[in-house]
């Protein structure tokens, strides 16, 4: 079962941290990624640049627009993600709880939606196999 651990944190949390605290956090995150890779849980992990660098893209009535800023202005911003393979939600929660970022931000754990299966199921219902 695949889960996306979405990391949220306030920008000002990082502003308040010293250079050495930030360095320690980065080291701890990388070390944790490595441990998850070795245990076979990690699919991919990625930190993101601050929301100040975000651009939001939409297509409406066939016209594309690109605007400055994130999709939603919230106090806690999307700061990165860790995509994992876990036995079930309990294991996913345990892994999320061990992410160093869980101590200063929040981790949203979301199960994936298997689109291939969804599409196959939908086709099977609309066109049942004949005996």
């Amino acid at each position, binding site marked *: 079962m695949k889960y996306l651990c979405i990391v949220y944190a306030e920008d000002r949390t990082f502003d308040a941290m010293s250079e050495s605290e930030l360095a320690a956090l980065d080291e701890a995150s990388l070390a944790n990624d490595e441990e998850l890779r070795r245990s076979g849980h990690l699919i991919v992990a990625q930190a993101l640049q601050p929301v100040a660098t975000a651009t939001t893209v939409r297509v409406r009535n066939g016209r594309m627009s690109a605007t400055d800023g994130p999709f939603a202005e919230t106090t806690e911003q999307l700061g990165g993600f860790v995509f994992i393979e876990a*036995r*079930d*939600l309990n294991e996913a929660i*345990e892994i999320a709880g061990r992410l160093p970022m869980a101590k200063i931000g929040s981790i949203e754990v979301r199960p994936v939606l298997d689109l291939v299966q969804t599409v196959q*199921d939908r086709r*099977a*219902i609309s066109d*049942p196999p004949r005996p």
Partner: protein
Amino acid sequence: MIDADATRDQIDSIYRAESRSVLATLIRLLGDFDLAEEAVQDAFVAATDQWPRDGMPGNPRSWLISAGRFKAVDRLRRRARFDAALDELAMRLDQHAPDPAEIDPDHVDDDRLRLIFTCCHPALSPDAQVAMTMREVCGLTTEVIARAFLTSPQTVAQRIVRAKSKIRIAHIPYEVPSRAVMPERLEAVLRVVYLVFNEGYAPSSGTSLTRPDVSSEAIRLGRLLVELLPDPETEGLLALMLLHESRHAARTSPEGELVLLPDQDRATWDRDLIAEGLTLVRRSLASDEVGPYAIQAAIAAVHADAPVAESTDWGRVVGLYDRLLVADRSPVIELNRAVAVAMRDGPEVGLELIDALVAPGPLDEYHLAHAAKADLLRRLGETSAARGAYERALDLARTEPERRFLARRIAELRS
């Protein structure tokens, strides 16, 4: 010769005693709540059909589990005509018939715990945890749950549907938590059980003073937890519920009016429940880790020990509230402590403590804080201030018996 009527009665009592265990095991074997619930119903329909004719099986529970599993495979096969994926599932279930050991009593106890912990999983909303526990573990109908929480059966049903869908989609496992997370997970379960009990013992609103069906289900659940997972706090919670429940008959007058602790006829307190509660309190207090439920139970035990209200050991009650405040600094506990202090040291001292909690304190919207303040003012002879505080309490009170009680006090102060 088989007595068909007697068998039917037996099936009824087996349903009451065993249907939740059968459900708990079938959820494990079938891996799906809805399928398991249908299977339980199917199994009992089959029992009603066959047992009066063929006689009772040697082990009714195992019979019901096997029948339920068989019926579920059947259902899946029928549905598989529309959904090929189900055919595979039906085949897998059919080929992997459970080992008889899988439905032995030890496993069955584990299944009941699995069901409780899954219903109280922290990934479900607190409302959903309560609704799921009352529905799946206690077997109460959505109508009864809705009445207990003053909401519509549709709302309750929707909460349950959403919770089950989250369990399925997010893969919340059907398991007893590991030792590492057991303390937090057990705490969540106890919180749900206590909430269910409180809603039955002292409904937060409505026309009746108690809902015995709901509080007795909470006690049943507490007993089950003590039996399966003995722990000082689990015993403390059961003791607390039993000692409160022992005063059930005395809390309401024949006219349905509220009777406060000092005015209750202690002869009507249930001595059996008290004895059971006191044994549990003693055992719980003797353990290394005394938690908030055990302390609250110890406070209830002080009252249970006093033959008349005047002989209550208020010094011990204050001491226990002090310990409780260390564990949980809640303003409601401070209020209760203030009332005990007033009983020990006089109304003036208590009044000073309560004044700090109401306007502009944290309990300004809490009717019992104003009622307690009013009671102390009344005892000090400050009639008009007492009336003001009772009126404020009346504005905030939400159950009819409480409102009538407060109105009566106001009327007494006028005369």
